[in-house]
């Protein structure tokens, strides 16, 4: 350390600044941009994994047309993903907001619980899938026993064998895994609502609900926007839990788009077709990412 090191040649700042970002740009280009472009190319080919040469055999938009016009399974996964995204975003946001309001005031109990919130979030989504399969096992699952006691018709049913119940379990696993993180984000937002504004509203005689609706919620709006967009993106991409929990089943009742792409690409070896569906999936992502980037940069400029 220290003296022994050779004085490096002085590089002018306006060259150095590009040298510093160059490796990162290369890594991002190779690991993220190239696959996107290559997947786009593959989406226009016959693209069978077991047929050499078919990855260079072009057939125009046929894969896209096939997916949209001839594949009920594609539309099934679109609807599953849409319902899944809508329900998980709505439920997680509402429940996380409630929990954040409960926990934001601080104190020993509340800070302790805030600390624990990190645990489900550090858990691998695959493991969350496993643990929910465990919890809903009809013979010895704890949640199964609980719901069975609460709603007798649900006692000892095979949750994961029923299309609607399996979907419900997937939603529950997702909501369980994401509430803690969103709660932490929203607590951050709640803490930054100025105290004086709240107190002024209370002095004006507004009740709790009015204060929440007219003061807290508008102040929280930017953070809520971040939460909703971020969660939508992660919900649209969902794969790990589904794979471990139901593997898309029963039948295709819980087959999300990511799972559908995986199945076509890897199980059936139709990588060209899978790539075209993957690109169809990127479209909503572009809108969400655009909205998210706008939020991030507005924040950046405000500082």
């Amino acid at each position, binding site marked *: 350390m220290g003296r022994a090191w050779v004085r490096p040649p002085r590089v002018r700042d306006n060259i150095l600044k590009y040298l510093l970002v160059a490796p990162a740009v290369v890594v991002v280009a190779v*690991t993220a941009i190239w696959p996107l472009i290559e997947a786009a190319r593959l989406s226009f080919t016959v693209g069978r994994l077991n047929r050499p040469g078919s990855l260079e055999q072009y057939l125009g938009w046929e894969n896209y047309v096939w997916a949209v016009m001839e594949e009920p399974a594609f539309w099934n996964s679109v609807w599953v993903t849409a319902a899944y995204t809508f329900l998980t975003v709505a439920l997680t946001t509402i429940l996380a907001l409630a929990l954040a309001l409960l926990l934001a005031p601080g104190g020993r109990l509340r800070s302790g619980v805030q600390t624990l919130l990190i645990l489900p*979030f550090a858990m691998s989504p695959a493991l969350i899938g496993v643990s929910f399969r465990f919890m809903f096992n009809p013979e010895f699952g704890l949640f199964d026993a609980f719901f069975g006691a609460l709603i007798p018709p649900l006692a000892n049913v095979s949750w994961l064998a029923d299309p609607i119940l399996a979907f419900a379990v997937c939603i529950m696993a997702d909501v369980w895994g994401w509430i803690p993180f969103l709660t932490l984000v929203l607590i951050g937002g709640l803490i930054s609502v100025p105290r004086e504004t709240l107190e002024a509203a209370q002095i004006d005689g507004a009740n709790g609900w009015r204060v929440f609706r007219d003061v807290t919620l508008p102040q929280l709006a930017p953070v809520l926007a971040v939460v909703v967009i971020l969660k939508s993106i992660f919900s649209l991409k969902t794969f790990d839990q589904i794979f471990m929990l139901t593997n898309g089943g029963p039948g295709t009742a819980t087959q999300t788009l990511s799972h559908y792409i995986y199945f076509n690409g890897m199980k059936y070896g139709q990588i060209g077709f899978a790539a075209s569906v993957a690109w169809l999936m990127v479209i909503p992502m572009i809108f969400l990412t655009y909205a998210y980037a706008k939020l991030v940069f507005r924040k950046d400029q405000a500082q």
Partner: protein
Amino acid sequence: MTGNRLRRLFSAIQVALILVATFVMLVPIAWIFLAAFKTHVDVYQLKLFFRPTLENFGTVFDAPFLLGAKLFNSTIVALVTVMLAIPIATMAAYSFSRFHLRGETAMLVTILATQFVPAVIIVLPFFVMFRDIGLLDTRVGLIVVNLAIVMPFAIWMIKGFIDGIPLDTEEAAMVDGSSRVQMIRNIVLPMAAPGILTAGIFCFIIAWNEFLFALILTNKNAVTLPIGLALFKAEEGDLWNLLSAAGIIIMLPMFILALLIRKYFVQGMTMGAVR
């Protein structure tokens, strides 16, 4: 008087709700912890009291499960991914933070956007390429692909930390005649070290928990822990006590790491949109 009593009732309800929420949050985790110490027989009953055994933790490391190899793979892959990503990200983050670059906004947005690309679209071309050049089922291949998910987080997170370091110290050092590179080495890096370490831990957790890449790109030699979970689906059903023991091995180290960097988790995940 009644107002006071009402308020006390209200706060009691709040505490009750908090406790219920905490219970719901912890039960699935606690259930895994219990099951890991149960015997094969006990796990098939809703028992809260049983004679704990450490046997499962031995079994998962024996043949045919050999969890040790997966543990090794997971450790190497996550560690090397982080060791590659963090220096590269730190350099870029410093430049983004301190200089005005041509196309800076475009670069930053692109880097942000790559985080939102579905993993399944990234893995398809890599599968084809790795098959052609013989990188399927290797740790090297997995590390390359893992960089895709880790880099955006690392760059944005470290940029956030460097943004927070006041410029004056740097300017003072520059006036003293050190070169920019020396100054980064001697002033910026030590000051940003806690932030860089935090980003490193954050990325380690992400790489450790990564599932889809490992599922598609490995099948035997380079299998990581989350994929290893699938081993415990036997013909007679899931081996829950072993799954749980493996589950603990996967999640316990991450719990400890996550608690270390708890304060920065939100900032990291939202790429600085919320601090």
